[in-house]
């Protein structure tokens, strides 16, 4: 499973990449692997305000719909429109294909997120629980 070193993570399997106070948000390799074929992405609305931990959009696989939780608070300033027609991009490369960009209201929140090592451990624990 791919867990890039330079990203931060949530326990709910979102990743964050920070560039100039903006948070690029997507779902992790673990998430896409467990969801299976993603067939629909419900993008958040550009301009909407989100709180860290809010279910702010959703991804749907053949079998189920799953909420995506915002790792940080702020305003959605951009969404990845290509996911509307090609939701499978999230399966193909979940880290290249971010879902939304959030202008953070409290950049300090990123520090509270998991680093790659802690997230890898969290995934292992979840795998064990599912087994």
């Amino acid at each position, binding site marked *: 499973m791919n867990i890039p070193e330079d990203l931060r993570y949530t326990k709910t399997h979102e990743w964050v990449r920070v560039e100039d106070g903006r948070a690029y948000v997507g779902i992790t390799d673990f998430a896409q692997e467990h969801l*299976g*074929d993603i*067939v629909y992405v419900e993008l958040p609305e550009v301009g909407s305000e989100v709180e860290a931990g809010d279910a702010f959009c959703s991804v*749907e696989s*053949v*079998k189920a*719909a799953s909420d995506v939780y915002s790792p940080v608070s702020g305003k959605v300033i951009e969404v990845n429109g290509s996911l509307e027609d090609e939701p499978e991009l999230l399966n193909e490369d979940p880290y290249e294909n971010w879902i939304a960009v959030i202008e953070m209201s409290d950049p300090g929140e990123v520090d509270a997120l998991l680093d790659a090592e802690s997230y890898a451990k969290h995934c292992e624990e979840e795998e064990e629980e599912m087994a």
Partner: protein
Amino acid sequence: MKKTPLYEKHISLGGRIVDFLGWALPVQYSGIVDEHLAVRNAAGLFDVSHMGEIEVKGKEALNFINYIVTNDVSRLVPGKIMYSPMCYEHGGVVDDILIYMHDESNLLLVVNAGNKDKDYQWILDKSKDFDVNVLDMSDSYAQIALQGPKAEGILQKLTDIPLGDLKFYAFKDEVLVDGVKVLLSRTGYTGEDGFELYLSPSDAVHVWDKLLEAGKEEGLLPAGLGARDTLRFEASLPLYGQELSEEITPLEAGLGFFVKLDKEDFIGKSSLLEQKEKGLKRKIVGLEMIEKGVPRHGYEVRSQGKAIGTITSGSFAPYLEKYLALALLDIDFTEVGQEVYVDIRGRDRLAEVVETPFYKRRYKR
């Protein structure tokens, strides 16, 4: 969880095991969409050993079955198979089943796994006044489904009987497949041509391996329950518990062709006759989403803010690449072209009633 004889195979093939009605079965191997497309374009191999098999034997076997199902079994001939709903007195459905006729006094019923115990008890209870023996033989059968346009070519490598002669909904007993005796049936639940092999549990692994090997060049993939569901859905084949249930009659489910109201008495006849004469108040139709979204079982369907029915099955259809649903709707909203809204996770999304089947079957007639 109960395990089929192929459980270890599923593990070694990377199958993702889930609890399906008490059975440990793979929901997918390489991926639902991948497996779905393999069945449409080449072939897929399914473990369907969880299905139930009930034998009905005795002098009155054929007459008895004709009394408990809605289709006309008197038209069945040895070596042929008939699909039929089996109803309660009130017209709701106990199960939908396949009836295999060896001869008039020896028939095999293949029933849904989740209904098997209920069906067996129901059939046993109803058999009291008939000279028949009803036996639950489910543990004696493993079942493997080989489905897809390449199915015949793949299976032909392993058997001498000319498969081209075996028509859709026909079967042959004691066919040798790589030396193993199977009951070979040209049936399936995918909307494709294909076969279902009933065999001894102890032979299942051998035949499974041989089939996978024989189909390698043709693109045969092992396929799980996920693809089985999307394939049957795309072909608009009903699933018990969704399109059919104790509360939904076969007429409402659009299975009127399999309800022979002109045959002699059968369980549910008077209720179904009455429903037909009075006219249906609701029925199952196909929906295609005009506004994108994945409709799913249980979602409400609305028109002008008013509830007019529910989604019975819904999915992204992998081959057609559309968001589709089957829905049980008030009869006033069932004309093709009718626009309705589906409440998808709190948002009303526009959909349109369309013709079914969504995917046109390509069977061997």
